[in-house]
């Protein structure tokens, strides 16, 4: 514990601010999780009360488990998210490296072209995408979702990663070149490990909209065997009646896997950092 470089009042203030903000961040989440264990009446009568013996009710969870195959839905969500994430990171990093490392004609234009995607909501292309999937027989497959999410995640990933890749030392890459590493290996063996924090960050950003997306599962893969959790939970959002117990339960459950993924990535972030650059 450093004593010389961090004074007590300063770190106390830091903790105070962080704790305060943590409360702000977590309070609503706590409300959700707490209420998912309460009977409907208790949710609205006293939303702030933790579940008591009288109000404790797992009806939400039982409803969720009874209605539809939520385990399967989780599996689907996880498959889609992880595979798309992998592709986004891989393809995105490759393109970002090409854009940030090499000077070639059309570099800026290519960069701009690849950034166009973040400027228009991809939903607008729904019909054409759906037609494409119908034509290629991918409707109601997870592949369709993976393809869409990969495309959707790429622009942002490229945008952020190319910025971070510019900070990798040239001498290092040059050392690799002299060592006879091909450009691909320089990318895979040197640059990728060094931008690990950025990769983890991008992974987190990319993962969330994919996990939470409702639209494309609804359009492209609504069948029972390909449903995702978010889509599954929509069953409880009725026209006039919303089964809040079930929605809260389903979506509380849905937080867990993302949280796990988040933990995995944030470990990468830290590991990437501690392997640190040298001189």
């Amino acid at each position, binding site marked *: 514990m450093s004593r010389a470089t961090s004074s007590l009042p300063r770190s106390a203030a830091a903790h105070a601010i962080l704790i305060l903000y943590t409360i702000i961040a977590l309070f609503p989440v706590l409300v959700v999780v707490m209420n998912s264990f309460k009977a*409907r*009446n208790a949710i*609205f*009568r006293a939303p702030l009360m933790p579940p008591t013996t009288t109000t404790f009710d797992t009806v939400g969870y039982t409803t969720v488990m009874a*209605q539809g195959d939520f385990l399967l839905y989780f599996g689907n969500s996880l498959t889609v998210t992880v595979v798309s994430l992998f592709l986004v990171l891989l393809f995105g990093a490759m393109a970002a490296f090409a854009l940030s490392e090499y000077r070639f004609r059309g570099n800026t234009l290519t960069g701009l072209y690849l950034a166009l995607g973040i400027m228009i909501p991809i939903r607008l292309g*729904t*019909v054409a995408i*759906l*037609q494409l*999937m*119908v034509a290629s027989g991918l*409707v109601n497959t997870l592949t369709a979702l993976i393809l869409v999410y990969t495309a959707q995640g790429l622009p942002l990933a490229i945008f952020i990663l190319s910025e971070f890749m510019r900070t990798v030392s040239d001498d290092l890459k040059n050392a690799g070149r002299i060592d006879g590493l091909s450009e691909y290996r320089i990318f895979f063996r040197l640059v990728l490990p060094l931008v690990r924090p950025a990769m983890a960050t991008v992974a987190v950003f990319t993962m969330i909209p994919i996990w939470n997306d*409702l*639209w494309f599962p*609804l*359009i492209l893969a*609504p069948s029972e065997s390909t449903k995702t959790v978010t889509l599954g939970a*929509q*069953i*409880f*959002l*009725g*026209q*006039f*009646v*919303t089964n*809040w117990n079930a929605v809260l339960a389903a979506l509380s459950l849905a937080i867990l896997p993302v949280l796990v993924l988040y933990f995995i990535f944030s470990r990468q972030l830290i590991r990437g950092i501690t392997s640190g650059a040298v001189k």
Partner: protein
Amino acid sequence: QDKSLTIESWRNDDLTIWQEKLIPAFEKAHPGIKVTFAPSAPTEYNAALNAKLDAGSAGDLITCRPFDASLDLFNKGQLADLTSLPGMENFSPVAKSAWSTDDGSKTFCVPMASVIHGFIYNKDAFDQLGIAVPKTEAEFFAALDKIKADGNYIPLAMGTKDLWEAATMGYQNIGPNYWKGEDGRKALIEGKQKLTDADWVEPLKTLAKWKPYLGDGFEAQAYPDSQNLFTLGRAAIYPAGSWEISQFNSQAQFKMGAFPPPVKNAGDTCYISDHNDIGIGLNAKSPNQDAAKTFLSWVASPEFATIYANALPGFFSLSNTPVKMEDPLAQEFVSWREQCKPTIRSTYQVLSRGTPNLENETWVESANVINGTETAEQAADKLQKGLDGWYKPGAAK
């Protein structure tokens, strides 16, 4: 080889009823046809359905929104013509009007259900405060005053946050009494009346008078809040649609009653909103046309009507053959059909075809009027202006 049919619907709420009652009943009678009910969230339904129809991946059977939304699909050739479907004769032209071409010559969805507006009240509270069921507007407001004075209950459980609550449960609920149901509605379409006419401004004015009786912060009160407020026993009167019945039955721990929108003066003819709400049609590109038609004919049958109406009290069959219902509250609602003249919501037919959309505008304006950010006249003015912007009476086909 079994044929399998998929039903597209926005009625998540009905999933269990379909799975447990309707589909087994059908499949028992028609072996060889398997049916899947595949609802999506109501807010996404239209958009998702349109996309799927355009791309050709939609289900075989399409649950139809009333009027233009479905008419559009039919005009685009996405819904099949069902005019000659066996069983269609079970429905009156009025029942079919929501899913027929403007001239009434072609019908493309089998009517399934209508909903009726009125007020549900907390009988215990009324008894406790000694309030009789109000028949006239004056009695209605007197009752509200009394509840308010007592202070134990919020007089009216309604909020303006969700906009449509104000329009549908407020404006469309009490409105028919002012514009005289079908007469006023037709006159408006024909251009003989304007939204700035007294008959049309009046309900807005009345609506504006509701404000003091709503709960604290009603501006941020959403529709589920209102429901909960009432079923948790914190409010006395709930401006309702009949669809609430089944949920309220299961949630409220007090006795409930219902009354139709009060008339202006005792003895006036009363009008109620009895609105065609749900139909079901056939995807024109479905590969299972025959099986689907078999299913639709079954939906048109009294057997379906009985199961459906009893499973979902508050969604009333549109079939000519009367349906016996068990639920007292539902019976109460449907009994108004006898005393009062039914009409459908004023904005639904023809008038919401253009931009700005009259229905949407009515939501916004109703809420504004109740919030007090606009007067009834201003609101009516805006509505009429918006309508004038695109609607040429008589030009409608």
